[in-house]
């Protein structure tokens, strides 16, 4: 299982490093919010999910999409704005979706998918499906009213949902303490009546362990659960680079996280040979995905007004 986790973790890291490398060429026609440094959160939680389970995420969604098994070619093609992208080039990096892998939504408006995930969990329970919904969002999203409203409804209806707050300490360039009267996000969750715990986002194996304890209980109908996962964004809020020069944070602050890099730490626990095989396969897959994107066509003009409604003809009558 450590091999699988490493494959997923290494794959996400390398895909985003590659995105960052290619970005200056302007081939990628979409803003990118990289998860480099935060990959373990998605990988750890998704390791405890089953295929029927559902996830919702944010504009910082590459890691979640890939951790859930979203198609890499379709993702890179999406970033390249090609017709072969996971949304035909219409949504871009901030709106990845993979219905087959049950990645049911990502949004560029902070907080919105928390409520969508809660509604999905209601549908799951209404249909007596044994699925669990996992809702991923940032520390900033907890300041939006929809966060409190969603937790209240999830508890009121005892919904099968796991809330995963990826606390990277920042909303763009503003630290949590400057936005929240108290940093105790878990306290706020508990006050709504659901169990909440803070976890170390650099400790993948612990994350997997906790998720594997909790997900079955949520599935069994014990009601919603809350994870606050402490993590750190290594790159700038949006874009490929680093931003220590901006002065809102220091490299010293990042140092311990980089020292605890979950990718490196997990790598060290694997034998050289097996690891080399995994890495070679991933590099191959990445090269293939970028080549696929490069070679893919852009959507044609007719695509502009398609998909407004299921019945195409209505699009025409809509001014």
């Amino acid at each position, binding site marked *: 299982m450590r091999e699988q986790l490493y494959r997923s973790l290494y794959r996400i890291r390398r895909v985003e490093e590659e995105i960052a490398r290619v970005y200056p060429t302007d081939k990628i026609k979409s803003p990118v919010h990289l998860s480099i440094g935060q990959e373990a959160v998605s990988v750890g939680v998704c390791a405890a999910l089953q295929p029927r389970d559902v996830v919702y995420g944010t504009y910082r969604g590459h890691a979640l999409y890939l951790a859930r098994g979203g198609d890499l070619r379709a993702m890179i093609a999406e970033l390249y704005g090609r017709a072969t992208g996971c949304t035909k080039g219409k949504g871009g990096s901030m709106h990845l979706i993979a219905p087959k892998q049950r990645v049911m*939504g990502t949004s560029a408006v902070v907080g919105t998918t*928390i*409520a969508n995930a809660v509604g*999905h969990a209601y549908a799951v329970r209404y249909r007596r499906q044994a699925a669990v919904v996992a809702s991923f969002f940032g520390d900033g999203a907890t300041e939006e009213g929809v966060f409190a*409203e969603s937790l209240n409804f999830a508890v009121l209806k005892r919904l099968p949902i796991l809330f995963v707050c990826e606390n990277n300490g920042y909303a763009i360039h503003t630290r949590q303490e400057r936005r929240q009267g108290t940093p105790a996000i878990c306290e706020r969750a508990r006050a709504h009546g659901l169990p909440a715990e803070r976890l170390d986002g650099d400790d993948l194996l612990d994350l997997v362990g906790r998720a594997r304890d909790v997900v079955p209980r949520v599935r069994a109908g014990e009601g919603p659960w809350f994870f606050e996962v402490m993590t750190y964004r290594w790159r700038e809020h949006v874009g490929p680079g680093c931003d220590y020069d901006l002065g809102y944070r220091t490299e010293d602050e990042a140092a311990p996280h980089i020292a605890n890099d979950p990718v490196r730490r997990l790598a060290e626990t694997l034998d050289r040979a097996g690891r080399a095989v995994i890495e070679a396969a991933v590099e191959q897959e990445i090269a293939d995905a970028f080549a696929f994107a490069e070679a893919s066509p852009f959507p044609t003009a007719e695509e502009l007004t398609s998909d407004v*409604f299921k019945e195409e003809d209505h699009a025409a*009558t*809509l001014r």
Partner: protein
Amino acid sequence: MPRLSVKPAGRRLPAAEPRRPAERTLSYVEAIREATDQEMGRDPAVILFGLDVDDPKAIQGTARGLAEKYGPERVFGTPLSEDAMTGAAVGMALAGLRPIHVHIRMDFLMLAMNQLVNVAAKTRSMYGGRAGVPLVVRAMIGKSWGQGAQHSQGLHSFFMHVPGLKVVAPATPYDAKGCLSAAVRDDDPVLYVEHRLLHFQKGPVPEERYAVGPGRARVTAAGADVTIVGISWMQVECLRAQRYLADVGIKAEVIDPIWLSPLDIDTVVASVEKTGRLLVVDTAWLCCGAAAEIVAQVAERLQGVRDLGLRRLGFAPTTCPTTPALEELFYPNARTIAAAARDLVEGAPTGWLPEERSDLQSIEFKGPF
């Protein structure tokens, strides 16, 4: 999902056709209740919720008995959380349910705009058609008895403005039932606009299921002198105005757009091409409203074809006052509509205002709401 049955059904009944001699008379409230009951009976994916949906008043009776019949998981009241409950409705729809989310005042949708405009409307297109939101949002426009500033707005034009949303505003019990069925079966988000005063209307409603889908406006009175388009409750006032006008020998053609988005402008254009005069009456403000869009489209379509007389009536350009002394002036009514139409026909202000006819009075609804 028998989704294909929707538009055909809507088409199968030519909107311009006089309504069939119907078996029964129902109120608008009963028609909504019946459509909801029939759709819920037909499709387990249909669920109904919103503030106070399951309380003793059951949303003016539109949900009467449904909580008992379908149980608390399918029919339930919600917390006061319009934003999250709308987001939850979107999530339910993404999961394949067909939620009907009810709001006793359209004003409260201002708390749901993010999920409706930024999520529900965008889902199908921004995901390249790989997901959709079959959601119905029922929103009521309040009027009378001092509903006042925050309980009286008709904000349907906001939803007409945004691609990806459909908007319907039925004016009769017949359409209330048919349009709600069509909306529930629609695979995309639909705003279903109910005017509080329409709830008291009675009319013929067939027992069987039928759908009045998008695409066809209805000519509710034929005439050659002036075209009057009346939206939602204003359709009732316009039909009364048509009778005031008949008293002075003016034949008004009255049109009910029924669906505001997508809008059947062809029916309106055809009428105006004949009459040369268009009066649009909305239960909303005029600036950037539905009336502006209809007037603009007609003027564009008939440019170079013929001269036009154009006029809009709607809310006065101010906040709705509670005192009846001012509230009465805030709204168009049958008599002011008739007067405006006559001025259009005469091509100049006539100063005419018909004497109120007792048989054409508004039944104003009495508080408390």
